[in-house]
């Protein structure tokens, strides 16, 4: 299976659970599992080659100009991680089927899980660091969804936010680091970067890149001081914890360090930062874990500790340590996932995870007990289980390494190992051993196979690797460690008995120490509870609150919601920027004469000046201001015609109409006049800003009109090629729908989003206090009794087909003559709007068969389909095509792909304009408005016994 498909399968499969849940929970789970299984099989097909040391590549150019390509490669390390992600993922999917309760929505869960899985597989298979970053961020987002899966729990939401904040910040740092790395190496392809060790380590930017990348890796892998998010992420359902927080996501940081190990490791900086951080994390995590009473918190901190251990090994920078690290990654994934699942079983059956409320479960849950026993003994480092082997290798390496004072490192590590053994024993001793209790929240018993099967499988691996390490894990370790070190492997042997070595001694000491710590746990626990410790969540919350406060300060100054302030800030910024630009560049001497001013121009100019002048004087009268704005808009439209730009003029007129109606609707809710504001100084200040802006604009316009362009303009190209390349005489339209179609494509989407945002804002407004206040408004007693006069109703109905015809006409001619989808959309929107104004909101909306949301969506889909269709012909997105056809009875006509695209523009415009206007008009509804079924208030043809259907208030789409 091509590598891209392995990474894409989970993403594609993520669409299925939501559909399959309709067929039942089993069907949903099996579908999800089969997706993962397919990806797993696709991966395993490559196993023989990869284990033989081959590297498999898959290349697909995506954005070669910026160096972002969908390149994948599979070597030993990627194979190991992908195997863990997909293999444990499969077990988790089965486990989750039985873990989730009836009230938990299963479809979203599996969708999130598959999204996460795809993102993780993407990370480990990426051969392009930019692509890797994309997947990296996707894991942060999908894990946010998974951690916050139980939305009703505040811990879940807070934990999810914290995880996102920490890993997201790390992700940002990582982006910086990766880009520096790519710049040094001259390529963003990992396989190239990995060959540039000397160049990278010699670069002065090595240290910044290293620190940024490590911040990314440390936040993801919960290394000190970023370890605090992991325990809080435990609010997630246990399958998520077992998957994300033991086997996969937290290992992404380790993966990154291992992946970049060949180029980054081996320097002093790497050794000091990584090894120290790992060591501190290991000790700290183990210590806290010992005193946690929540089963999952204990496991979470133990995970932090083990991640620290692996980080430390990677930090040592020696090949042997790298082998040990890789081996421990495998072992940790097996026993820790199994332990999380047993913790989930205990929680599921006993309804508590509090160790102090548990004990004696070995008789009640024998199967779970056996699984937990083997897994936790492996975690403690007891022989014949896999944890022992990698811990032994770690100790062997530690005995050889010196960090600061001699013997310091071994001693600290022994302490950490003892603590690790102690919490492993505690997990067993305080939960499964001891006397049976009477006061479990629910008497536990072993669950069905679905829950214990997956951890049992993992524990079988734990034992098998523990007994026959070389046979079972040997090839995988060799292949993946080879990928980390980049070739030569040191001598190492995966076997249980190495003879009496210092490592064995340290191991024995650690286990003994662990037993001692457990014996004295009770007094130690009392002391621990009594000591004051910095609480990470409190610190985090304080930091977040501080950030919020600071940004709010800044925002309050810059964005107080006052339009005048915004305008002033904008004007001053523009003035400063243009003053700088003006002073720092030279202006060519005026090379063009200004045109003579004609009569029409003068009249238009006078009208604009006079209307603006009146506006300044009477701006407090809002209705008058609106009328004056209409004058300005009309003159602008006419000036477009005057300068031979009919397309612009048409659009401008249509936009003017729509916006005046919109403003009239808004005026409904505003006072009739603006209150007088500010004193003389304020007015003076505003006059200066506005005057400077106006004069600046004038100077700029004059300069542009008098001088030639510094470079040849592109207009000539458009004029020359509009007909030959795009088949249209109307260059403006051809630019919009063909030459720069991608821009338009983005713009209509933005337009649609803007309309949806207006809708959402209105929804929210109407749902709240303001909405109630608006609905409770008293009726205006001076309203006319005949709001919808017959003449108007009848006239608009006659106009409707005419106006629609004009719309269609403008649309169809758009490619060759002034017109096009945008103007046509506005015309049609106005035609529909007339019905709303004339016949009232209720009557019109009852005849509106399609929702505006749907029309916007349809428009975007039409545009996308037009774009995608060109792929079928092997051309890039949105490539245009046109041809001429002949039908009987009518002239030869042209069909072009641009027309379908223009249809998308048309629909988007209609939908967006109408949705915005409808949202605004909904504000006008009062609580006791009755639904009007008649378009006219006074209709002589209606019989007398019918009650006169006049609502007490005005109908909303009214624009008086």
């Amino acid at each position: 299976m091509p590598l891209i498909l392995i990474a894409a399968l989970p993403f594609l499969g993520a669409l299925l659970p939501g559909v399959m849940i309709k067929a039942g929970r089993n069907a949903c789970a099996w579908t999800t599992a089969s997706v993962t299984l397919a990806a797993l099989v696709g991966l395993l097909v490559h196993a023989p080659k990869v284990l033989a040391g081959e590297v498999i590549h898959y290349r697909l150019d995506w954005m070669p100009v910026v160096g972002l390509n969908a390149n994948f490669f599979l070597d030993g390390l990627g194979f190991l991680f992908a195997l863990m992600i997909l293999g444990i993922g499969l077990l988790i999917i089965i486990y989750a089927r039985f873990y989730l309760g009836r009230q938990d929505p299963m479809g979203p869960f599996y969708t999130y899980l598959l999204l996460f899985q795809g993102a993780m597989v993407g990370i480990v298979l990426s051969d392009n660091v930019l692509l890797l970053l994309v997947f990296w961020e996707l894991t942060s987002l999908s894990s946010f969804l998974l951690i916050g899966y139980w939305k009703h729990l505040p811990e879940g939401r807070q934990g999810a936010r914290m995880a996102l904040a920490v890993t997201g910040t790390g992700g940002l740092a990582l982006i910086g680091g990766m880009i520096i790395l790519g710049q040094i190496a001259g390529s963003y392809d990992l396989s190239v970067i990995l060959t540039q060790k000397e160049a990278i380590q010699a670069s002065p930017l090595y240290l910044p890149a290293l620190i940024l990348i490590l911040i990314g890796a440390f936040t993801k892998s919960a290394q000190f001081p970023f370890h605090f998010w992991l325990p809080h992420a435990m609010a997630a359902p246990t399958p998520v914890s077992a998957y994300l927080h033991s086997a996969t996501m937290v290992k992404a940081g380790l993966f990154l360090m291992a992946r970049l190990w060949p180029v980054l490791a081996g320097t002093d900086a790497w050794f000091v930062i990584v090894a120290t951080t790992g060591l501190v994390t290991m000790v700290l995590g183990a210590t806290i874990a010992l005193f946690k009473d929540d089963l999952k918190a204990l496991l979470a901190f133990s995970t932090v500790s083990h991640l620290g251990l692996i980080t430390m090994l990677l930090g040592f920078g020696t090949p042997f340590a790298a082998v040990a690290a890789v081996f421990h990654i495998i072992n940790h994934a097996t026993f820790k996932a199994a332990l999380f699942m047993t913790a989930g079983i205990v929680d599921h059956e006993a309804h508590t995870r509090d160790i102090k409320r548990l004990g004696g479960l070995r008789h009640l849950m024998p199967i779970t007990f056996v699984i937990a026993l083997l897994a936790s003994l492996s975690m403690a480092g007891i022989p014949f289980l896999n944890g022992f082997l990698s811990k032994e290798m770690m100790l062997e390496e530690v005995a050889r390494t010196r960090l600061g004072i001699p013997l310091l490192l071994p001693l600290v590590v022994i302490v950490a190992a003892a603590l690790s053994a102690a919490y492993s024993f505690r997990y067993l001793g305080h939960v499964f051993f001891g006397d049976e209790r009477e006061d479990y929240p629910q008497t536990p018993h072993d669950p069905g196979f679905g829950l214990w099967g997956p951890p049992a499988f993992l524990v079988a691996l734990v034992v098998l690797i523990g007994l026959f390490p070389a046979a079972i894990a040997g090839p995988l370790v060799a292949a993946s460690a080879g990928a980390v070190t980049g070739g030569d492997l040191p001598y190492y042997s995966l076997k249980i008995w190495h003879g009496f070595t210092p490592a064995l001694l340290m191991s024995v000491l650690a286990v003994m120490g662990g037993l001692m710590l457990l014996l004295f746990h009770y007094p130690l626990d009392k002391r621990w509870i009594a000591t004051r410790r910095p609480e990470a969540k409190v610190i985090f919350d304080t930091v977040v609150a501080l950030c919020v406060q600071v940004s709010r300060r800044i925002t309050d100054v810059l964005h107080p919601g006052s339009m005048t302030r915004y305008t002033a800030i904008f004007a001053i910024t523009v003035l400063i920027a243009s003053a700088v630009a003006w002073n720092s560049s030279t202006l060519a001497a005026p090379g063009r004469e200004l045109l003579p001013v004609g009569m029409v121009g003068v009249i238009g100019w006078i009208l604009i000046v006079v209307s603006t002048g009146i506006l300044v004087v009477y701006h407090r009268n809002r209705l008058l201001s609106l009328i004056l704005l209409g004058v300005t808009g009309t003159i602008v439209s006419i000036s477009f015609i005057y300068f031979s730009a009919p397309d612009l003029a048409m659009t401008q007129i249509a936009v003017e109409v729509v916006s005046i109606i919109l403003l009239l609707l808004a005026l409904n809710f505003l006072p009739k006049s603006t209150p007088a504001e500010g004193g003389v100084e304020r007015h003076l200040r505003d006059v200066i800003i506005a005057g400077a802006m106006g004069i600046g604009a004038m100077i700029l316009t004059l300069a542009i009109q008098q001088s030639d362009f510094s470079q040849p303009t592109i207009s000539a190209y458009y004029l020359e090629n509009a007909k030959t390349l795009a088949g249209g005489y109307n260059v403006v339209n051809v630019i919009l729908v063909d030459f720069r179609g991608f821009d338009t494509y983005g713009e209509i989407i933005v337009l649609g989003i803007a309309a949806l945002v207006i809708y959402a804002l209105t929804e929210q407004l109407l749902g709240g206090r303001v909405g109630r206040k608006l609905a409770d408004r008293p009726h205006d007693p001076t309203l006319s009794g005949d709001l919808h006069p017959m003449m108007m109703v009848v006239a608009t109905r006659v106009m409707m087909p005419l106006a629609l015809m004009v719309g269609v006409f403008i649309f169809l001619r758009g490619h060759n003559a002034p017109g096009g989808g945008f103007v046509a959309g506005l015309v049609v929107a106005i035609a529909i709007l007339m019905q709303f104004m004339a016949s009232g909101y209720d009557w019109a909306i009852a005849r509106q068969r399609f929702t505006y949301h749907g029309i916007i969506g349809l428009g975007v889909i039409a545009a996308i389909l037009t774009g995608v269709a060109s792929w079928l012909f092997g051309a890039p997105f949105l490539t245009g095509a046109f041809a001429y056809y002949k039908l009987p009875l009518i002239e030869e006509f042209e069909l072009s792909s641009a027309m379908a695209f223009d249809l998308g523009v048309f629909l988007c415009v209609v939908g967006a304009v109408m949705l915005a206007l409808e949202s605004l008009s909904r504000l006008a509804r009062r609580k006791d408005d009755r639904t009007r079924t008649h378009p006219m208030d006074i209709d002589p043809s209606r019989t007398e016994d019918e009650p006169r259907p006049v609502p007490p208030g005005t109908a909303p789409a009214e624009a008086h």
Partner: protein
Amino acid sequence: MALWQEVIVSIMLVIAGVFGLVGSIGLVKLPEPMMRLHAPTKATTLGVGGALLASMFNALFVLGRFSFHELLISIFLFLTAPITAHFIAKAHLHRHRADYLLPATGTGMPWAEAAPPDGSSAAQTEPVTEPTSTSARR
């Protein structure tokens, strides 16, 4: 274009201009709103109509074919101008009505410009604040 053709087009344009001018003067000079109402409505229909006819003749003479766009424009104008006038008149009556001057409608319903009978009976009994002279014209 031959001279007689130019003359026809010019006459049409002059008619249009005259009506436009008369309409504008009327709008400024006539003393009362209900009178002023007539000036611009006549001007739009006849004034613009003349210009449209001129345009049609021009197309006929110069391009040698009939141009129908202008017909559409005049249809729109004939439809919209009365509506506009109606609305201005309605607004005027509504703001300056004097209910006591009006005879009963005889249908049990109030006049169209009055407030609806339910919901806001206050409007019916409200003292009329501006009994201007124009309201008698109904």
